[in-house]
């Protein structure tokens, strides 16, 4: 059912008559710039799950890709994510006191990275593999009752990434993307936080 509905939904975005289209960076003679905006979901991985275990649906990624050669692009991308989880019991320690009670954990992630993509095929359906290198800023909020502790830190990040660019009309595509982000971020008591980011977006090139 979903497989039938998705193309129909996407087709509704298009002017009538849109059909097969060429893909991105198919020719070394035409290497356009790609701009994409994606809705991003983050799934915490590893130790980060001890601070926030819930999947975050609040986030986005903006990406710019420059055609480098046939099937290859270099780019830059920025992302923002908000992770949130309420827990029944949490504790905060102070020099002379400890408070325990209902708690919430929040994390804000802002990232910026350079990217390299290798498009594996030509045509409207182009799977790709890539890497990203960069860093960002993380801000964590730990609140117990009405006591809040915040901490913000810079971090470095590296990520393998893979995706699919589905060109639905010339110069326009739908992008699916997954990136597994390794970082040096310290969030709460967690060091070297990592997460899986999944994107669904629109690309213009």
């Amino acid at each position, binding site marked *: 059912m979903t497989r039938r509905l998705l193309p129909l939904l996407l087709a509704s975005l298009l002017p009538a008559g849109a059909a097969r289209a060429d893909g991105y960076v198919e020719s070394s003679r035409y290497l356009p710039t790609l701009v994409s905006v994606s809705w991003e979901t983050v799934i915490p991985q590893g130790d980060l799950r001890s601070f926030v275990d819930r999947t975050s649906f609040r986030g*986005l990624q903006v990406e710019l890709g420059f055609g480098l050669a046939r099937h290859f692009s270099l780019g830059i991308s920025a992302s923002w994510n908000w992770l949130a989880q309420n827990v029944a019991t949490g504790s905060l320690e102070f020099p002379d006191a400890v408070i325990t009670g209902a708690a919430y954990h*929040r994390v804000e992630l802002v990232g910026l990275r350079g990217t390299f993509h290798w498009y594996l095929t030509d045509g409207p359906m182009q799977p790709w593999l890539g890497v990203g290198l960069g860093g960002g800023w993380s801000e964590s909020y730990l609140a117990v009752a009405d006591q809040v502790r915040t901490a913000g830190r810079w971090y470095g990040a590296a990520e393998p990434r893979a995706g699919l660019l589905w060109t639905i009309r010339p110069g326009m595509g739908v992008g699916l993307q997954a990136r597994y982000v390794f970082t040096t971020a310290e969030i709460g008591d967690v060091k070297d936080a990592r997460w899986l980011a999944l994107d669904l977006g629109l690309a213009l090139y």
Partner: protein
Amino acid sequence: MPRRSGLTRAGRTGRAATVLASALLAAACTTDIAGQPGVAGAVVTYRAPGVGFGGFATVARAGRVGLVTDADPGKVFANAPTLLAALDSHLAARGFVKVAEPDPASPPPAPPAADLVVNVTALAVAGAGATYWNGFAGYSQPPNLGFAGYAWSYPWPWLSVTSLPGTLLVEISDARGASAGQMVVVWAALAYGVAPAGDWDGPPVLAALDQAFAQSPYLMTP
């Protein structure tokens, strides 16, 4: 045929889709930092800096639970035998021996022969600011248990936790070290809003007491 807006049907569909996608993206960019977890049920424990509890062996625990209320300006008490028994049990489990049970309604003329004095207070009134209970008649001050003429002090900065009615207060004072008219409270626990209806023997109160000791592993003597 284009309408007056100049857009074809496909164009209008595209515009609607763009608006929808923008709204979804905007929604994805929201945060929920506003609002905080409730204070009710929170347990805060304070410890006097530099105090080791291994040097204390005996306790005198107040025989009644002082009740601080707006309604009664006199010295009144809450009925909470299970709470007091649970407190005794925790203290015994931590190695402290109860040697006296002074009645705050009629304090003894001389200090009890104990290293520590334990006060229990039921705060049925919501006040503003830390130690707001000090001025209420239902509060049994540590010196009221036999140390007449002494003042007492809290050697820590209080957290600014919003006060709630139905809050339990347990204080442990250094009776052995009382001198020059001063008694120092060396440990205190506040359990916020655990007895809003006045059931000071209820499960939330007892669970909060358990939590207060659980988060104070240093509160023990060999």
